[in-house]
């Protein structure tokens, strides 16, 4: 039970206090996704709230979601790089650039319930069938 910043108080008000404290702390924390953007998309769905803290809450939640997906994709990417064993390690470390690819992303999103299927290749480019990490689109 991690509470962000808590004065421990007993009773059911504990949770409410925690919540209100958390919301207050949100005003200090600036989420990466700006408020105007979140408000724009929320307005499209009919979400009405004059309270800015709620918008911040949504922004933070989205940011957390994206961060989770990105970290999963990063793990996939690193795992892939680890399996590609080179003969001469000292010559070229696998410190290639970590590229967010569609493959890793689709696997990461699949765990979160989003099914993304990406077209393998379009037969109109000369770099077809190459290692996706080594070609940047």
């Amino acid at each position: 039970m991690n509470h962000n910043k808590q004065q421990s108080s007993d009773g059911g008000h504990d949770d409410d206090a925690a919540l209100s404290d958390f919301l207050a702390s949100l005003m200090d924390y600036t989420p990466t996704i700006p408020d105007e953007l979140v408000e724009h998309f929320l307005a499209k769905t009919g979400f009405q709230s004059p309270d800015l803290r709620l918008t911040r809450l949504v922004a933070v939640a989205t940011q957390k979601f994206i961060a989770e997906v990105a970290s999963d994709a990063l793990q996939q990417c690193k795992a892939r790089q680890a399996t590609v064993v080179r003969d001469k390690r000292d010559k070229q470390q696998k410190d290639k650039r970590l590229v967010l690819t569609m493959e890793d992303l689709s696997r990461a999103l699949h765990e979160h319930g989003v099914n993304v299927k990406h077209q393998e290749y379009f037969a109109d480019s000369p770099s077809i069938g190459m290692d996706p990490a080594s070609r940047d689109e």
Partner: protein
Amino acid sequence: MSDGGRESERGPEKPAPQRKPGGEEFARAFVKVAVAQICESEGFQSFQQSALETLSDVTVRYIRDIGKTAHVYANQAGRTESNVFDIIQGLEDLGLAQGFLGASDIEHCLASSGTVRELAQYVGESEQIPFAYSLPQFPVVKDRKLTPSFLQIGEEPPGEHIPAWLPAFPDPGTYAQSSTPNDRTIELKMAKIEQENQRRKPERSLLNVNQWLASNELEGPSSVDAGDAAKAKQAAAKAKQAAESNPFLAAPLQYGEKEVSSVVLPAKTKLSNDSTTGNPISKYHGMDNHVSVLEAFAPNIEAMKSGLRDSEEGHKKVLLNTRPTVQFKLGSGKKYLGSMLDSSPQNKSFEVNESWFGRLNEKDDKKRRAEQILKESMGNLQELDHL
């Protein structure tokens, strides 16, 4: 983190050229930037274009899903405005796929929901990543200047049926005729039209002359002005020339103006209905095409010549193309599809000609002359055949 600190390979946003501008593009571009920043903080150094777009699309959907779910819960509770508990419920719904602490609790207080706790944890642990750009408030609401109503202007609406609170009519100067630069183009067009009209005038007078020549036989152009008399004569001369060169310009005959004989079909009617296709039939024997063509047009030539004579009398004749249904062929031993000529072609042709001429009631001397000319021409053709 400033712009210089970003290592992502994507440069500043430039939308794809073939995308048509829409309100969504602006917002999506910024979402891409934000998502790129988040991924970069996780450790990625560069992105695939399609991967970034997919992820930003997922982000937008996530935001909209939270909003929609929160709105639904608020409506369920009988409210129009959402509050924090609606959002928490929405987060729980969305987070069920991944799972959170306490998800299996049937009854639990929303304030102590696992999602909130996880969020709080995240806020506490992660560092802040301020957005790279500063966003204006969007979408910008344009200030529209509405047309003032009658009441606001202080005018009386021009009619009892028009209430005064409706917007006023535009200034009549804006839609009425006036000499503005726009009208100059209209005036140019008018000038062009006038030129064309003037050009068409002599043509029209030509047609008029033809018509009253046909009807009045040069009696008295009463309807024509004196000033146009000279023009009319010129037009008449032109008409003659036109008729000579192009028979289609000749004025049509009135009904009953010219006596025509009734059609007598020959006995052999195999090709009688193909009188107009005499030309293609003759072409089948493609030896001397020009000969057969000439002979096919022989009646036309004859009619034209007679027409020449008659034009002086003010008659214009329609060429009797389709009148003769008899096929006559010039004399050589040509075989035809359905040979309808019993006797030797040579004699028969001449006989047919004469009989055809005999059928015509009008037998002027000029006609005779035309016959002779035709015979001579046919005789020439015969000589050609012998060559």
